[in-house]
C-alpha cells in the first residue's frame, strides 16, 4: 500500500465515524413521544414513506421529470463510485482484474451520471430561484461529487491517475462530514419521521378515494 492509500483509508474512517456519530445522536434523541390515540400503522407508514412515496404522486418528481431523473442518476452514480472506491481499496489485497466489458459499462454509466451532476450544477448556477436558495456548500458539494465520479472514470480508464484519485476521494470524504453531504444520513431519518407522522394519523399508506 502506498501513502495515498493510507490517507484515503484514514479519510474513510473519519467520514464513517462522523456519519455514524450523527446516526447515533439521532438514535439517542429517539422518536417523538406521541400521547394521541394512534389511528393508523406506523410500520406501514414508514414502509410506504421509504419506498413508493418516493415517486407516488410526488410533484417534485412528476412536475420536474428531467431534474428528478438527473438527480436519481447522479445519486446512483455517486453510490456506484463510492462502492468502487471501497472495492479498489480491498482490491489492493485481492488484485482482481475487472473484466473489460464491466469496466466499459461502468465508464458509460458514470459518464452519464457525471454529466447529470454537471447539468444540475449549471442549473443551480443559472436559475435565479435556485441561485437564491443556494449557498457555497451547495455548489461545492455538487462540484466535488461530480468530480469524484469523473475521477472514478479517469481511474478506470487510466490507473496512472491513482494517486490523484485517492487524494481527491480523501478530500471528498472529509468534506462530507462538514456540509450538506451529511444528508446521506438525514435523508433516511426524514423519510422515517414522515412515515411515522403520516402512518400514526392514517394518512399513509394513502387510501383510494371512495
Amino acid at each position, binding site marked *: 500500500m502506498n501513502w495515498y492509500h493510507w490517507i484515503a483509508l484514514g479519510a474513510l474512517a473519519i467520514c464513517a465515524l462522523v456519519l455514524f456519530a*450523527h446516526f447515533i*445522536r*439521532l*438514535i439517542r*434523541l*429517539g*422518536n*417523538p*413521544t*406521541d*400521547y*394521541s*390515540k394512534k*389511528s*393508523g400503522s406506523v410500520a406501514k407508514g414508514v414502509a410506504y*414513506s421509504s419506498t413508493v*412515496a418516493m415517486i407516488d*404522486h*410526488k*410533484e*417534485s*418528481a412528476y*412536475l*420536474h421529470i428531467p*431534474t*428528478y431523473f438527473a*438527480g436519481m442518476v447522479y445519486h446512483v452514480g455517486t453510490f456506484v463510485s463510492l462502492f468502487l472506491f471501497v472495492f479498489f481499496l480491498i482490491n489492493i489485497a485481492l488484485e482482481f482484474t475487472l473484466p473489460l466489458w464491466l469496466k466499459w459499462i461502468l465508464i458509460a454509466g458514470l459518464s452519464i451520471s457525471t454529466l447529470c451532476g454537471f447539468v444540475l450544477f449549471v442549473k443551480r448556477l443559472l436559475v*435565479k*430561484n*435556485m441561485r*437564491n*436558495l*443556494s*449557498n*457555497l*456548500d*451547495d455548489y*461545492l458539494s455538487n462540484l466535488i461529487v461530480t468530480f469524484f465520479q469523473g475521477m472514478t472514470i479517469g481511474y478506470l480508464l487510466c490507473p496512472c491517475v491513482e494517486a490523484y484519485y485517492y487524494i481527491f476521494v480523501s478530500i471528498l470524504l472529509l468534506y462530507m462530514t*462538514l*456540509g*450538506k453531504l*451529511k*444528508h446521506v*444520513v*438525514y*435523508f433516511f*431519518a*426524514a*423519510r*422515517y*419521521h*414522515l412515515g411515522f*407522522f403520516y402512518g400514526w*394519523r*392514517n*394518512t399513509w399508506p*394513502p*387510501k383510494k*378515494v*371512495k
Partner: protein
Amino acid sequence: MEKLSQEQIDKALKILKMPADSKLVTHLNACVHCGLCADSCMYYKSMKEDKFIPARKVELVASLYRRYCTLTGKIAPKLVNARDLDEKMAEEMVDILFGACTLCGRCVKHCSIGVDIAYVVRIGRQMLAAMGLVPATLQATVDAALTTGNNMAIPTEEFVDTIKWMEEELIDEMQDENARIPLDEKDKNILYTLNPREPKFFPLSISAMAKVFYAAKESWTLSSTMYDVTNYGLFNCNDEEAGIIARHLHDEVKILNAKMLVLGECGHGSRANRWEGPNYLGMKYDFDMITVAELINDYIRSGRIKLDKTIIKERVTMHDPCHLVRNGGLLNELRFAVKSAVNDFVEMNPHGNDNFCCGGGGGQLAMSEYNDRRIKIGEIKAEQIRKTGATIVVTPCHNCVDQLMQLNHHYKLNVKIKSIGEIIADALVIEK
C-alpha cells in the same frame, strides 16, 4: 423592530439547542436546496417570489441552527449560510413564517427528501413566540381564548341567548316541544363543541347539527362556557398557551362527565385537540374524541339517521381541510358523509391528500395585516371550485367556510358554502 435583548435571543435559541427528540435535528439537516418544492406551495404559485418557496422558509430556521448548533456554522458561517439571530432576521421570520405559510403541509408530501417543512415553520414560530414576536392580531385571538374560553370573546349570556334562540327554531322546525339544545347537562354521551364563528355569525349551523342529534336521538350537551373547539395556540406556536386552551375542553369533559368529546367542524381545532392536545398536556386522554364527520358516519352506517339524496338537486363539491385530511387521515370519512347526502358529487382537482389549502389556515384569517396575500393565494382554490361546475361547496371547517365565503365574493364564484352538518341536515329524513 426594537433591538432584541440577549434574553430574547437565548430563549429562542434554546428551542434549537435542546431538541426533545430526533425530529427537529433531522428536518433541519435534511434539505438539499433542490428547490423542487416551489410549485407545491400556493404562496409561490400565486406570487412567484423566491422568498415564498417552502425551502426558503426552512432555510430561515436551518440557517440559525447551523450558526448556533454546528461546528461548520460556527467556524465558517459563509460556507453554509449560517445566519445570526438579529433584528433583520427576526423581521424576515415574522413576515415569512407567520405571514406566508398556512401550515397546510402540502409541500411536505411533495418534498424530494421528505423534509417536514410545516413542522420546521412551526419551530420558527415557536422561536418567535419565545421572543414575544407573535403578530399582535394573532396573539389577540389566543389571548381571547385564554381569558374568556373562546377566541371571539363572546360573553356567556350572549352565547346562551343564541342557543336558546336556536332551540326555539328547532322546536318550531321539528314541531316537537321536546326538541332540545341542551346546555351544561351532566352524564351525557357527547360533549359537542363549536367554532365560535357559529354562535357569532352562522348560528344556523348549530341548529343544523341539533337537528341531526335530534334525528339520531343522541344524548348530548353543549357547555355554556367551554365550547370552543379552536385552538390558535396551534398557530402562534406557544405550546404553553396551546396547552391551557386544550385543557379547557379536556376538563369540561370531566366536569360534565361526558363519555365522548365530539370535535365540531373545525380543521385546525380537530388537529389541536385530537392529535396535539394530549401532547400539549403530556398525557393520554381517558375518553374518546372524534370529529363530527366520523360521528355522522356512525349514525348513517348504523341507521340512526336516514338521508334522502334526492332532496339536494345541485352539484356539490368538497374542500378538504388540510388538518382533517392530509394531517388527519380522514380522506374517505369526509367523503362518505357528503356522498351519503347528495347525488351529484364532483371532486376538485387536485383533492384529498394533495388538496390545496383554502388560504385561510395557519392563523391567516386572524392576521389582517396579511389579508391581501390571503385573498391572492385563495385564487387557486377559487379556480379549483369554478372548474368543478358545482354550486355548493361543502367543507367541515368553519375557518375554511369563512375564507371560502370571502373567495366566493372576491372571485365571483356564485356558490353556496356549507358545513357537513348543514348538508346532512338538508338531506335528513325526520321519522316521527
